[in-house]
């Protein structure tokens, strides 16, 4: 086996996928008639009792559902029946908005903390106290003060994604190498130009790491937030399908949430690579 590592890994991944799907298919398929019973009674009992079929959908069922969603992702048939594309768009819109506001707050405040030891020490207790609070704990307070469930979930996204960015920015800015700052000082570079030409590029990889952690957390939290507030979004969709007892759709949503989360992470990873400099 001299194929490149990448190909071998791909082959192994596919093998694992096929094995899992196969095991899943076998586990949920029926075991044949389980008991002789009156046909009318059998109808009442459903396939689970009569043929041993599992209540869990098979991979084929899920595949069909995914195909159905992909063919028509943006349909609207009433307020409780919208296409998965529309639900995703709602969630992505909230995440984007909450996340961008967090960027606008976290990076300047992080700069302030990183550049001023005084502000760093003064703000530290607040950060330490608020950072470990589950973002969903803010939800009641947000609902009470904002009185809008959509904006409340945007606020929750903001509050959960602000901390990693804030802490990483402050750390990145504070640990810019002294010699680079001395270069700027000996060249009589002013504070604003110094911030943009030395500190920002030097701290950018650390800041982007924080941003990448944040987008991951935001995407985790939006599902829970939408389950809580309902109405629209992928989180609401999952909960709605659970109430409909459509396990097929629940599994579909899990896959979709995973794929979107992966794409968001990769986008930030690419941005991170773009600002990383070799030493």
């Amino acid at each position, binding site marked *: 086996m001299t194929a490149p590592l990448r190909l071998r890994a791909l082959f192994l991944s596919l093998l694992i996928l096929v094995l899992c799907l196969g095991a899943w298919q076998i586990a949920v398929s029926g075991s044949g008639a389980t008991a002789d019973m009156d046909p009318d009674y059998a109808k009442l009992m459903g396939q689970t009792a009569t043929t041993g079929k599992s209540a869990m959908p098979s991979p084929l069922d899920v595949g069909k559902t995914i195909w159905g969603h992909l063919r028509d992702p943006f349909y609207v048939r009433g307020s409780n029946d919208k296409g998965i594309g529309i639900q995703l768009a709602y969630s992505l819109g909230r995440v984007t908005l909450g996340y961008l506001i967090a960027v606008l707050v976290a990076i300047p405040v992080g700069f302030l903390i990183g550049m001023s030891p005084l502000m760093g020490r003064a703000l530290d207790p607040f950060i330490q106290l608020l950072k470990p609070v589950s973002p969903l704990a803010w939800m009641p307070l947000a609902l009470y003060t904002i009185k809008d469930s959509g904006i409340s979930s945007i606020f929750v996204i903001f509050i959960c994604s602000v901390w990693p960015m804030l802490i990483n920015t402050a750390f990145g800015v504070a640990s810019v190498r002294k*010699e680079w700052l001395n270069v700027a*000082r*000996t060249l*009589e570079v002013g504070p604003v130009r110094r911030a943009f030409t030395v500190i920002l*590029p*030097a701290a950018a990889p650390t800041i982007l790491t924080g941003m990448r952690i944040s987008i991951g957390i935001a995407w985790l939290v939006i599902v829970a937030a939408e389950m809580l507030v309902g109405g629209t979004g992928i989180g609401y969709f999952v909960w709605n399908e659970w109430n409909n007892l459509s396990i097929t759709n629940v599994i579909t949503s899990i896959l979709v949430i995973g794929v979107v989360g992966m794409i968001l992470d990769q986008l930030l990873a690419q941005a991170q690579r773009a600002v990383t*400099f*070799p*030493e």
Partner: protein
Amino acid sequence: MTDRFISVEGISKRYPAPGGRSTTIFEDLWLRVGQGEFVCVIGHSGCGKTTVLNILAGLDQPSDGAILVDGREIRGTSLDRAVIFQGHALLPWKTVLGNVAYAVSSRWRSAGRQEIEARAMRAIAKVGLAGAEHKRPSELSGGMKQRVGIARALAIEPKILLMDEPFSALDALTRGTLQEEARRICRETGQTVYMITHDVDEAIYLADKIVLMTNGPNAKIAEIVENPLPADRRQGDIHHDPNFYAVRNHLIDFLVSRSVTFRDAPPAGWDPRHPPVVRLGSAAAPAAEPASRAA
């Protein structure tokens, strides 16, 4: 004025120590450097040579005393005093051209892009890096990085060049080449240079005057050795010069033993305001030599 272009006037540096006391790194240093002079400072680690350089650069302040440059007291950093850092201190996200152009655009703030690039390219060519201007520091060898550091310092046309052991991290061959080029460039432009080194041979090759500092704490400027070697010396030949070993032995003797004894018991008549100027070898005035070598 020109013989005291840089005038170090009684500077000291103290740091607070535990127990409300303070540690004195150096005390009452006086030194004059003329315009166009190449001065090397030799002393053991901890004698405060780098602190003096940082004060000269404006990156640090003395606890007492002041340094005058061209008759004016140093207050903060200045584009007239360029620093070549020990660890090159290039900005790794910028190319060679970007690093040098950053300094140029800091010096000539209203200059257009073309003028900035032209000036930067001239400085890069001067250190022999033409063709490598679009490389990033990570793609360069240690010697090339330090050349970029030199180009960046020269590009702003400073009145004084401050070098903090610029060649100490390089291998011997690269160091030799760079020393030669540094000497050529500084002689061509009549650059005033204050350089720190641990390397006695480097000091003898490069310097017009060698400043000897005693060990710290409480370091002093013990004496100033005038270099008796001819001005048009060549690096491969200096050890054949009849005066070479006189200087070298004097410097090494100082570093080995006198750097401690001098601090603890300065010879009678030693005045910190006027550290003795030592002339060695056949060219020296005969009276000066025996007295100063009697350690």
